[in-house]
């Protein structure tokens, strides 16, 4: 809502010297979000004056344009010839018309300096202004012609300064009205707030009470409870040729609305002033009674913006015998729109249910000024007075006659009462507000207060549908006392349990990966099936259990992600395109597994939902495990003076999973696996506690190509929730043996397809408890071990907790280890 300061002054006795910025501070403190203060006309400077056109000569130019060489009377600013010569490109004025003249030395909006200049063969001694040049309108079809006299009927005096004469200077406050303060969508509401905050007198522009039902005027038939009140007034003999007065056009302009025609301007002006949306029908074009009812299925309406609307039974309609003529409270219809010939007008001021209007406005994506107000609640008591204000203005400005016969259907509903203890504001705010002060504030806000001891029975005014619950009144007291007065008290929470185990472990995993060289990224969780196709995810894979969005941000990604990899690979592609070629990225985030059949209920909010209802909500949600994914590409270790580069690949992602495991106390062992999108020969699966954790390895070459990432890019993805669940508990710290270590190296020849991890497992099993550690230190394939074979060389370290091992004991343990490997994989010990 844009509110000119001069307009507010009409209804609130603001201090003479208060500026728009100062008033903004006052209103902000009272809870109104003043976004900007425009100093309208402040950039008009210098001799901008009223002039009278004395004569002109039209001179066609070579460029096809015709200019007028004018002599203009600018009173005391006239030159020695008794006028000023000015070249004007517009043709929309006559001799004798009054115009606005920017004489040399004037500054116009945008810092535009006017000086005498030679143009079209004349010295132009100033400029005759159009509305847009003055910053008061968009009109540039011609210059601004003022007519004979000002709005008060006093003839213009050439030479007087235009800014004061036309009222071009004003401060305009632009206020973002919160949904609860619908009444502040009006000069009336804002003037009331300003007056209350400054403790000055307020005059209500809406002082006419709504009479009981009258049916003398235009016939009205209300058939929906979404329209509890309808006022119709007739105005005849309107002169459709009358222009809107300058003050009205300026005010509308300052409020951000365009001037359209006098009758429409009047309805808009009164709406801005009172907050009551109004509609003017061409009486000649109405057929039979105006009926308010719900739309029928299949009905259509062409609205004023020339769009054919398919109506919904939830839409509230205005109809006459011809069919729908308006979308109630949102937008009028084309068929009864005012024309240039309209002389008989029916003015509508009605009350429509806010929820109904909000739904219709959203359904048809029509956010009109009227809908904006009805959605937030309009004062029903303003309808009658606002309709009369429109009728009076039509009479005084357009020469119309207000019909004595009027129609009022319905009534103003009584707002619900509530009661509070007088100390409730003190308790809720945490600062003392006396009983007397509470009563004083609420009464100033228009609340009817009946005090019985410490119990206050409160009836809100008709314009405050937001005052409903006890706490609503606390807020009213709070914002009018000033939240800047609140004391600052830190509440003492009971002893807390700190982060949960899972939260702590999640941070440990993140920190371990960061320490291992991975950079965290946060990707959008949206997904298209094309990405899954490119990853070669098979049809029966659970990553195809997609949850679809009803209104996706992009049609190409209508699903929620079931895997982190598409986002990570997109980040790889983006990085490589920006020249960041060596990458190790990771992300921790939810994926969404769809396929739920259940719909979530919307239980009542009057009390806690039943356990069944809560379980039903839970059952409708996608399963949302938290995943940990990562990807590496380019060089893991860059080429340096110490040695050549090491390419990033499957090793680093297998290691990353093991780093994550170690961060939570798990030694994770990979097993060979085949799963899209990984290379079938370079994919590892990790399991823990019998559950699959996830996969790591080099990506399939076709996938790399399809995803636009470098060849040999490698990735991992594990279920972080599972990792954190199977992570071991506190553990115990064993006594360390100080007896000497015994070392034994063995080399085993096995078939080339035997996994090294399995051989290691066999060695461990065979070596028994004396084995302290085992490390693979060489892998050899070649002629010395034979075709299809490989040699795995292990360093075994033995130690006993209680004695120095004898050579024979160590040898026996080593032989037992080798024997188990031989038994399981036919391993043959090779002489080292």
């Amino acid at each position, binding site marked *: 809502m844009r509110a000119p300061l001069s307009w507010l002054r009409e209804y609130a006795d603001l201090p003479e010297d208060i500026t728009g910025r100062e008033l903004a501070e006052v209103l902000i403190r009272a809870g109104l979000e003043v976004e900007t203060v425009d100093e309208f006309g402040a950039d008009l400077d210098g001799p901008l004056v009223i002039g009278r056109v004395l004569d002109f000569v039209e001179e066609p130019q070579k460029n096809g344009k015709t200019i007028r060489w004018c002599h203009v009377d600018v009173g005391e600013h006239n030159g020695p010839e008794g006028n000023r010569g000015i070249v004007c490109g517009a043709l929309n004025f006559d001799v004798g018309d009054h115009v606005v003249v920017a004489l040399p030395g004037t500054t116009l909006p945008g810092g535009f300096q006017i000086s005498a200049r030679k143009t079209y063969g004349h010295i132009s001694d100033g400029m005759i202004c159009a509305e847009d040049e003055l910053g008061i309108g968009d009109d540039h079809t011609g210059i601004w012609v003022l007519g004979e006299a000002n709005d008060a009927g006093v003839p213009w005096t050439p030479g007087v300064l235009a800014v004061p004469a036309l009222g071009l200077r004003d401060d305009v406050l632009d206020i973002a009205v919160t949904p609860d303060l619908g009444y502040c969508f009006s000069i009336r509401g804002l003037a009331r707030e300003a007056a209350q905050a400054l403790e000055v007198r307020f005059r209500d522009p809406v002082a006419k009470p709504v009479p009981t039902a009258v049916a003398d005027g235009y016939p009205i038939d209300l058939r929906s409870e979404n329209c509890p009140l309808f006022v119709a007034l007739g105005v005849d003999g309107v002169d459709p040729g009358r222009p809107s007065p300058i003050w009205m056009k300026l005010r509308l302009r300052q409020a951000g609305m365009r001037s359209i025609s006098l009758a429409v301007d009047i309805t808009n002006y009164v709406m801005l002033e009172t907050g009551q949306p109004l509609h003017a029908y061409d009486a000649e074009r109405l057929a039979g009674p105006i009926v308010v009812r719900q739309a029928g299925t299949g009905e259509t309406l062409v609205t004023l913006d020339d769009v054919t609307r398919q109506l919904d039974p939830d839409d509230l309609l205005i109809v006459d015998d011809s069919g729908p003529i308006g979308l109630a409270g949102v937008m009028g219809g084309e068929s009864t729109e005012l024309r240039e010939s309209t002389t008989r007008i029916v003015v509508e001021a009605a009350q429509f249910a806010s929820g109904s209007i909000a739904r219709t406005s959203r359904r048809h994506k029509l956010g009109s000024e009227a809908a904006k107000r009805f959605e937030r609640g309009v004062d029903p008591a303003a309808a009658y007075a606002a309709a009369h204000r429109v009728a009076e203005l039509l009479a005084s400005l357009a020469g119309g006659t207000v019909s004595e016969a009027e129609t009022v259907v319905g009534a103003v509903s009584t707002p619900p009462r509530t009661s509070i203890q007088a100390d409730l504001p003190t308790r809720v705010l945490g600062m003392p507000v006396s009983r007397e002060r509470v009563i004083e504030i609420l009464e100033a806000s228009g609340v009817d207060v009946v005090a019985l001891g410490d119990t206050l029975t409160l009836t809100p005014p008709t314009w405050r549908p937001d005052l409903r619950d006890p706490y609503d009144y606390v807020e009213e007291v709070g914002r009018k006392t000033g939240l800047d007065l*609140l004391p600052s008290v830190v509440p003492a929470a009971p002893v807390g349990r700190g982060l949960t185990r899972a939260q702590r472990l999640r941070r440990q995993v993140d920190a371990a990966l960061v320490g291992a*060289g991975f950079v965290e990224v946060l990707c959008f969780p949206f997904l298209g099936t094309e990405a899954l196709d490119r990853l070669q995810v098979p049809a029966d894979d659970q990553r195809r259990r997609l949850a679809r969005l009803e209104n996706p941000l992009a049609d190409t990604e209508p699903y929620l992600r079931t895997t982190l990899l598409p986002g990570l690979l997109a980040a790889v592609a983006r990085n490589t395109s920006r020249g960041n070629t060596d990458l190790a990225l990771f992300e921790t985030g939810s994926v969404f597994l769809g396929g739920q059949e259940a719909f*979530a209920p919307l239980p009542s909010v009057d009390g806690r939902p039943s356990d069944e209802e809560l379980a039903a909500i839970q059952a409708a*949600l996608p399963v949302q495990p938290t995943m940990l994914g990562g990807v590496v590409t380019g060089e893991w270790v860059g080429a340096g003076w110490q040695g050549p580069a090491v390419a990033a690949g499957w090793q680093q992602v297998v290691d990353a999973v093991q780093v994550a495991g170690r961060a939570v106390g798990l030694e994770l062992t990979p097993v060979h696996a085949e799963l899209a999108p990984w290379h079938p020969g370079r994919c590892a699966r990790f399991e823990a506690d019998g559950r699959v954790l996830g996969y790591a390895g080099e990506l399939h070459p076709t996938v790399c190509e399809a995803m636009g990432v470098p060849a040999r890019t490698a990735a991992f993805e594990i279920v972080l929730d599972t990792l954190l669940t199977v992570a071991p508990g506190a553990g115990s710290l064993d006594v360390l043996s100080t007896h000497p270590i015994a070392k034994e190296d063995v080399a085993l020849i096995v078939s080339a397809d035997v996994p090294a991890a399995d051989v290691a497992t066999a060695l461990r099993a065979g070596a028994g408890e004396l084995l302290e550690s085992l490390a693979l230190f060489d892998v050899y394939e070649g002629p010395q071990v034979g075709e299809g074979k490989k040699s795995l060389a292990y360093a075994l370290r033995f130690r006993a907790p209680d004695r120095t091992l004898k050579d024979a004991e160590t040898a026996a343990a080593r032989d037992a280890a080798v024997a188990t490997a031989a038994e399981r994989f036919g391993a043959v010990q090779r002489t080292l």
Partner: protein
Amino acid sequence: MSGPNTNYDPVEVAPLSAESLAEMVAEARSAFAAADTVAALKQARSEHLAERSPIALANREIGALPPQARKDAGQRIGAARGEIQAAFAARQEEVAAAELALTLAAEQVDVTLPVSRRPVGAPHPITALMDLMADVFVAMGWEVAEGPEAEGEWLNFDALNLDSDHPARGTTDTLFLSPLERHVVLRTHTSPVQIRSLLDRELPVYVVCPGKVFRADEFDSTHVPVFHQIEGLCVDKGISMAHLKGTLDHLARQMFGDVRTRMRPSYFPFTEPSAEVDLECFVCHGASVGNPDAPCRTCRSEGWIEWGGCGVVNPRVLAACGVDTAVYSGFAFGMGIERTLMFRNNATDMRDMVEGDIRFSRQLKGAAR
């Protein structure tokens, strides 16, 4: 063993003469001094101290002396040998030190060579900031609550006093799972976690809820459809708006040093009274206001920075969670992590936060995280 030879004069045995011994000592000394490597010194030692050395040979002559002369000669030789050994030991120390010094000099490297070839990891600044803010509350005894990102519409809206006609519930603002009648949305704030906390936990409740949220928003330099929030909820006996103010002031001080917060009345369906919370500019502390000579880029010379929303929990919200509003009251607040990062660390383009460019995350180091 020689036979008795009572009149044998030891002086007659030349190598045992004092002069001769002094010469041996002198020769040994000069030989040791001349040896400047461990190997040369070893050679000199064998020549002047070992079995075939003059002093060793001289020692053999003692047996030829009459018994009464032996003691005297033995003492002379012992002293001379002692001198030679001491000279050797001293020289050995010198030579070893010199040789080590040479070795060390030869082993010098250029320590300014770049040695680290490991990739440099970094957490995302959003995650780091979210953890940092959560920790302020954990230190106060609060707990960190979490919940699902695809959430029941009832938990995201109804329970928070946003009725079915509320504009935020439209498809222009909120991302819905299909079909609409399923009543599942991508949470538009972390407030449903507050509801879950009230439904699941025992009172009193002191929780913060950090996490990812979603809006059907444009994606440009100042808007992202997926962003992060941290919200706090306190429900206890006797809680007032002054406690809210105290909590926000504490958070502000922990995060930004000696600054205050300011509340401006506002409106949210889930709080009543509601307020916007502003942070006193932690850079200029208001000094830039009306002072064009010293503009402040952090607060745009306004002295205050819009931070988030807050208020007293609307009793309707407590009632929907089965909390006895006659006994309990509470406050709640919430702020955007991206927004906080923007003014705290001068981030200007929100797209940088979601595009995954490694240069973005790597910029924040140490305490800046």
